[in-house]
């Protein structure tokens, strides 16, 4: 299946394999990492960013595509909507049907609140479903929440909000226990001990996994539980604007039936934005590992309602996206492949870096290898680096790949590449939005005291880079917290009369800043359809 030039390079990779099996490449120093990031990480490419012209983060930069959406128009301008005709009335409205939204729904329901989920695709069509590698928690003897904190804080360049990171690490073991008690099948030894491995940037082996279907196993269990609890899930229905009340509180959302185009009014005492990431905005033209709906909708909704963003200028490029074959370009190759011992190797068969540096450093290093150093392997869509997967079978025994990373094996076998015998080609892919809406330690936005955010739509939990396994963790920890907090808050919330005044005001601000856009936002679905005329 590989082209001739690829096959020639594979020979070189095979020639150095025996020698590499006995060594561990050097880790970079802090200075080396800083220089590398500044020169090669996409977050430092000025032309990929644009200034936000209005709103709470006015004057700050954001990826150009996100700034454009923040500068685009509401769908509802000029639409005549009767806010008093209420289609859904609930205590807690959750926007988004991924891991964070589902966790929040279960906890809000457990707390006795009326809760409903709206999602523009189906429940479970989310990045959670695609998380392969695992979920972190410091639950072993040689580990502690402080050690977890240190790894995450350092890995995120000392920028994480301490009160958020504290919640993440302190509630991690309970999150695993909760999932396990819901029936998630974690990889365990006979005696019940969790099988844990390293991820990039971890100092202890605290990565819990469900083979390489970790997110899928978590998501399908959460979905099953949501349905068991008879929590209403309104699918193929997006939220296109938040509704506020005359006291400035969140009061629900305007919903759009994605199939009929009809608008509906959902009134709620508390609203949780759990809309996930932004990979489908294809920042800097990168391919993405994200699901179809990852278009930063919640950021736009929240921002228009007055909630500030945090670290919106930092994006995670997963070092190992598929570079070849083209059909699966940009798909995620789980970090677990490197956790299990596969090295990153260039066109000459040289292991040019330690395979378990943090994701930003690894991505920058691969980009450098393929650009400045010219040591990438040419592919139809660019270039790539080898991930030497046959090493896994040699290190841990034959059958390890099938047992531990079956999804990866299946994905490549579809295209006649047997990763047990041949290395695979990877290149960084747009993976995660480190930034998002700013929340306080208890999960509420700082601007609106009954609006909460959970999951990838939150900014500040991870700082400016996220470690593997801390995202599956954050959707559970912050999702559960948001569900509980929203249920409690709903009991003491009295709604005033509903209004979309903030939407009108935002449009006026755009006009005053002389911003004219032909486009509407939130984007809802990527524009992939090709039209000849």
């Amino acid at each position, binding site marked *: 299946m590989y082209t001739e030039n690829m096959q020639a390079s594979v020979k070189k990779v095979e020639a150095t394999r025996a020698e590499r099996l006995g060594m561990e490449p050097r880790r970079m120093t*802090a200075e080396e990492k800083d220089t590398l990031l500044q020169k090669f990480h996409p977050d430092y490419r000025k032309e990929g960013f644009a200034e936000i012209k209005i709103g709470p983060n006015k004057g700050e930069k954001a990826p150009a595509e996100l700034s454009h959406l923040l500068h685009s128009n509401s769908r509802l301008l000029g639409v005549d909507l009767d806010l008093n005709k209420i289609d859904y009335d609930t205590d807690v409205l959750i926007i988004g049907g991924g891991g964070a939204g589902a966790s929040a729904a279960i906890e809000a329901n457990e707390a006795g609140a009326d809760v409903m989920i709206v999602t523009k*695709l*189906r429940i*479970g*069509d989310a990045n959670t*479903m*695609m998380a392969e590698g695992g979920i972190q928690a410091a*639950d*072993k*003897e*040689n580990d*502690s*929440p402080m050690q977890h*904190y*240190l*790894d995450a*804080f*350092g890995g995120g360049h*000392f920028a994480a909000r301490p*009160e958020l*990171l*504290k919640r993440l*690490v*302190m509630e991690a*073991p*309970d999150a695993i*226990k909760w999932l396990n008690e*819901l*029936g*998630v*099948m*974690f990889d*365990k030894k*006979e005696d*019940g*001990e*969790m099988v844990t491995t390293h991820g990039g940037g971890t*100092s202890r082996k605290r990565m819990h996994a469900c*083979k390489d279907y970790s*997110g*899928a196993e978590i998501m*399908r*269990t959460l979905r*099953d539980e949501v*349905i*068991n609890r008879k929590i209403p899930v309104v699918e*193929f229905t997006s939220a296109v604007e938040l509704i506020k009340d005359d006291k400035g509180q969140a009061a629900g959302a305007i919903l759009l039936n994605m*199939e009929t185009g009809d608008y509906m009014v959902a009134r709620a005492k508390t609203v949780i934005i759990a809309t996930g990431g932004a990979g489908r905005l294809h920042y800097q033209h990168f391919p993405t*590992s994200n*699901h*179809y709906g990852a278009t930063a909708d919640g950021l736009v909704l929240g921002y228009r309602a007055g909630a500030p963003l945090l670290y919106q200028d930092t994006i995670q490029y997963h070092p190992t996206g598929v570079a070849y074959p083209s*059909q699966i370009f940009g798909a995620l190759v789980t970090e677990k492949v490197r956790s299990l011992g596969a090295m990153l190797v260039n066109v000459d068969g040289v292991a040019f870096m330690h395979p378990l540096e943090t994701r930003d450093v690894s991505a920058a290093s691969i980009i450098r290898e393929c650009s400045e150093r010219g040591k990438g392997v040419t592919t139809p869509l660019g270039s790539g680096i080898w991930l030497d997967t046959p090493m896994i079978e040699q290190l841990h025994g034959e059958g390890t790949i099938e047992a531990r990373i079956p*999804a990866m094996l299946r*994905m490549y076998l*579809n295209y006649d590449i047997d990763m047990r015998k041949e290395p695979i080609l990877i290149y960084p892919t747009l993976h995660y939005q480190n930034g998002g809406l700013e929340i306080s330690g208890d999960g509420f936005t700082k601007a609106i005291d009954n609006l909460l955010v959970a999951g990838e739509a939150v900014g500040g939990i991870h700082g400016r880079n996220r470690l593997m396994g801390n995202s599956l963790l954050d959707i559970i920890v912050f999702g559960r917290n948001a569900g509980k907090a929203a249920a409690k808050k709903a009991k003491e919330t009295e709604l005033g009369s509903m209004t979309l005044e903030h939407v009108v005001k935002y449009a006026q601000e755009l006009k005053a800043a002389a911003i004219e856009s032909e486009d509407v936002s939130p984007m809802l*679905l990527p524009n*992939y*359809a*090709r039209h*000849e005329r």
Partner: protein
Amino acid sequence: MQKMVNVYFYGKKYSVPADLTIMTAMEYAGYTLKRGCGCRHGFCGACATIYRIKGKNELKTCLACQTQVEEGMYVASIPFFPTDKRTYDINEIKPTEQIMMELYPEIYSCIGCNACTKACTQGLNVMQYIAYAQRGEFEKCAEESFDCVGCGCCSTRCPAGISHPMVGVLARRLTGKYIAKETEHLKKRVEEIKHGDYDQLVEQIMQKPIAEMQELYNTRDIEE
């Protein structure tokens, strides 16, 4: 010149580049997908698809995002299939043979035609995991069904009306919760945290100046 193939979406002919997947070929043809498209990487099961190659008799099932187009492919996506999930309280049920009989009695009407296995987009032995479920061997059922993405292709082909993916989910939840051994180190750590053992220590690390944190981070020992 790009190699093109002729495919038929819902019976209508389109010429599309040969290296596309069914999903990207539909977009190339001008479709904006609303249903039948989820993760796009083979994990969510949203894009269950049925096709037949012109001139051939066999009806095939696949995920549109993971399958390359072929010349003469007649394609219909299955945007929704009414699988039948039964509801239960996970804390009330137990991994007994009766539970399958109570919740999914139709699995005992399996006629052994193996159409489910043939239809599986993940190449799983679906009929086998249903057989395990019939016998109350939940752990085996869980293992055999583990890679299921819930696309439902198996159920579309089943003459007994079995909702196979739902049976798999139940078996996995029973296995994860009741059959796999409890994790002592996890229980212990949760207790310690609840007891407040780490409260002060974590407050301390939160208060440290950045320079000290940098030093701690750069010199931390890493488990072999």
